[in-house]
């Protein structure tokens, strides 16, 4: 490959001397160029809690389980595990058998430089690692207090310290004991945070492990910087063949994407995978449109007018459908405005009369919010507005739930304020927090104008800007903001993940940014979280959702529709929402038709 770059005579000399003749007529490389709209900072699985890092980690490392390529709603399937876990009758003990043929990639960290087989000890180590202080894990909360021996205040000093509920029974079996039923446990073992890492590499690279990944996944890392990552197949990864039916192939749904061609082939199919990090919408689009840029784009909402001819449901124009493959899917997450219930001026209050009045105020502000207008101006009509915190992606989503809480009703808002004795001079002064960006400022101005329209004086709503998301998160964590806009992405398809946002013990600095403290909610939540999926659990989830809507804890919510376009010579069904970019290992490039 490098021969082609050298000038003329040198190439000849090189060919003669180094025997590059076999590359004189090279096979065309199968290259796929993917585009992500963000930049991962670290490739250490313990830090991979955003979709960008997860996409890379998911392809460089193995997780015990992964999601099926095509089945929707998402379904788990064994990955590093040989089959589904053997769960005891009380749901407390999991036995997971590993496959025999998984091997880490070659790396100088191993003796002799050869990657070795993955064992159950590696799984135990990878999980224990989250509880060492120097790991600075972002995923330990998934298992803390769940696995026996990893209590909320447990601190491991070395990875050799024994943990009662986490052990390797033999070379390829892991036994995990939980303190209480945890139906979502297998899902947590499909998250990039749980990926299996070799101890040798962690100790060899130390702090640099985040830029020197060593995994047993389908790819290995060749190059990584702020603008792109280049991956090549891991020669030790031999799984497959691809069984499309097992992955959820449906001839009707998946017609037209030419996926049949990959059935029965070993994967990964690519020779080279380039993942470009392009946060700017302009850059992403132009790179895709030009001949030599990326092969895939998540269409920026600003450009939706150019590619769509209809919005309900989204319909791509004929030109787009002819030139490219296209798809639309709702995001695995949602955005909402939250109130700080810990502020007695607007949230929980020991005086029941004041608490009622506060609730009326919150509900009035919610009525004054115009989701349709927000959807039009900032999401270009691509947002799916729904009440509460169970987004449309989930099977527990209740399509029949009343849209009353998301309707724009300024007169009802005024009525609420009047009935609860809120005159403009008695209204509390609230702090609205936002990140420093032009859009955020415009959203704030829009919000303030709606509040002004129902009699909430603009002067009482002050804005605080934060230069970075970290600073913003800190202010929320320190309970300094009264109204804030947040997004929450779902790591697995279970409403427990979003309803935990209101669970009392998760109060700030935890995920419960609302600092919602409702004992009835907590009780029901604990009950629902231990039930297996089924109608009983769905009923409880919906009840919890309605509690939250009723109490006006949030103004919510909106899920955005994603628009995908990719070039015709690429055979794939992309999913940038749930999971860890598993689809990338199944991508195939039809040779000879690349531009």
């Amino acid at each position, binding site marked *: 490959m490098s021969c082609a770059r050298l000038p003329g005579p040198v190439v000849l000399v090189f060919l003669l001397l180094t025997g590059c003749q076999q590359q004189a007529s090279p096979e065309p490389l199968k290259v796929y160029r993917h585009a992500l709209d963000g930049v991962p900072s670290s490739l250490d699985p313990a830090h991979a809690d955003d979709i960008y890092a997860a996409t890379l980690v998911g392809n460089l490392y193995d997780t015990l389980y992964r999601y099926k390529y095509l089945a929707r709603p998402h379904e788990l399937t064994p990955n590093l595990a040989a089959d589904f876990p053997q769960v005891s009758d009380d749901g407390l003990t999991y036995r997971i058998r590993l496959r025999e043929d998984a091997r880490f990639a070659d790396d100088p960290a191993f003796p002799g430089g050869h990657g070795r087989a993955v064992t159950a000890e590696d799984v135990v180590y990878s999980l224990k690692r989250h509880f060492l202080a120097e790991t600075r894990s972002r995923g330990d909360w998934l298992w803390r207090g769940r696995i026996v021996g990893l209590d909320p205040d447990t601190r491991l000093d070395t990875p050799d310290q024994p943990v009662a509920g986490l052990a390797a029974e033999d070379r390829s079996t892991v036994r995990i004991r939980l303190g209480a039923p945890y139906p979502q446990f297998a899902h947590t073992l499909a998250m990039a945070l749980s990926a299996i890492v070799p101890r040798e590499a962690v100790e060899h690279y130390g702090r640099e492990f985040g830029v020197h990944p060593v995994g047993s996944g389908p790819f290995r890392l060749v190059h990584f910087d702020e603008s792109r990552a280049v991956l090549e197949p891991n020669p030790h990864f031999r799984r497959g063949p691809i069984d499309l039916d097992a992955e959820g192939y449906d001839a009707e749904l998946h017609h037209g994407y030419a996926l049949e061609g990959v059935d029965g082939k070993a994967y990964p199919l690519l020779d080279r995978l380039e993942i470009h990090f392009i946060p700017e919408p302009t850059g992403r689009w132009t790179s895709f449109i030009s001949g030599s840029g990326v092969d895939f784009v998540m269409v920026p909402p600003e450009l939706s007018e150019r590619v769509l001819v209809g919005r309900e449901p989204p319909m791509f124009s004929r030109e787009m459908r002819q030139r490219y493959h296209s798809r639309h899917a709702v995001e695995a997450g949602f955005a909402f405005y939250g109130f700080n219930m810990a502020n007695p001026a607007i949230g929980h209050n020991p005086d029941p009369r004041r608490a009622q009045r506060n609730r009326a105020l919150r509900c009035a502000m919610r009525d004054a919010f115009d989701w349709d207008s927000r959807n039009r*101006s900032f999401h270009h009509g691509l947002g799916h507005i729904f009440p509460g915190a169970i987004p449309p992606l989930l099977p527990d989503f209740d399509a029949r739930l009343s849209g009353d809480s998301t309707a724009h009703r300024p007169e009802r808002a005024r009525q609420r304020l009047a009935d609860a004795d809120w005159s403009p001079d008695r209204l509390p002064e609230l702090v609205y927090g936002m990140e420093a*960006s*032009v859009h955020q400022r*415009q959203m704030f101005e*829009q919000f303030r104008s709606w509040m002004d329209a129902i009699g909430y004086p603009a002067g009482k709503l002050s804005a605080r800007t934060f*230069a970075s998301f970290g600073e913003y998160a800190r202010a929320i964590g320190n309970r300094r903001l009264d109204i804030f806009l947040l997004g929450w992405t779902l790591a697995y398809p279970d409403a427990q993940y979003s309803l935990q946002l209101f669970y009392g013990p998760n109060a700030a600095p935890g995920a419960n940014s609302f600092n919602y403290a409702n004992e009835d909610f907590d009780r029901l939540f604990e009950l629902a979280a231990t039930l297996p999926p089924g109608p009983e659990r769905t009923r409880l989830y919906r009840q919890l959702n309605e509690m939250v809507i009723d109490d006006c804890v949030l103004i919510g919510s909106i899920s955005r529709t994603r628009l995908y376009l990719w070039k015709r010579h690429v055979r794939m069904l992309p999913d940038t929402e749930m999971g860890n970019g598993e689809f990338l290992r199944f991508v195939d490039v039809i040779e000879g038709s690349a531009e």
Partner: protein
Amino acid sequence: MMPGEVRQTLRRRLPPASTAIVTAYLLTAAGVWLGWWGSDWAAIAGPGRVGPSVEHWLGTNLVGQDIFTRLLAGTARAFEIGLVVAIPSTVLGAVIGGLAGYFPNRWPDGVLMWLTGTLDAIPFYLFVIALSYALQDQPGAMQLAMIATFWTLTARLIRAETMRLRQLDFVTAARVSGVGTWRMIGRHILPHTTHILLVQSSIVFVAAIKAEVVLSFLGLGLQHSVSWGMMIAEASQEILAGHYMNFICASLALLILVLAVNHLTDRLQRRLDPRTRAETVKRMG
């Protein structure tokens, strides 16, 4: 040059077009300060992304705010930033430069030049951002940071000029007659640097406005108001969708004002600086 000479030079004909433009902008800003126009720049005045029409002369932006009103408000902000930064930084530079130049190579000079060099060595945007964080939410963090960095060039120029002036006879005479340091600098030396100060302050005026554009683009600009920089920043994404109005209007407004001020500064400098008077060169021709 003494202030009197400066006034005399200024009385001669200044380029008409540039003067008219700057005056027009200044009057616009004055109107905003007096509240005659441009006050409701934040109001959602109509549907988003409307083109130029009778109600909205330049159309509306993404959220539905009137672009023309925002442009007017931005004019006032531009002058505010420019003046708030130019005047203090020029004064600061004059004082520091005068003091350093009056005691060349002694300890005040050493310390002040060390301070100048230090501030010059810190990258400008890092300094502004860091200062914004340090001052948390206070308005004026950006202006303060600009003042703290823009005085250095003025100080260096004034220092060089002071060093030259203090060797002249009239200064020696005043020193011999027992005039104190501060009076010396303030009443005998600095007035002769008026031409430098005038030119420098207009250079800093322009630099401050331009720096604000970059800072707004990076997300660090004015917090509670609208400026051309913010309009350009919001427009940078709208352009993709084919809405150019915001970008073109704000850019043109900025370009024309800066061009006019630069032109005036250029003419002023050539007239006031004894070494590059246009006549001298022409006579060589």
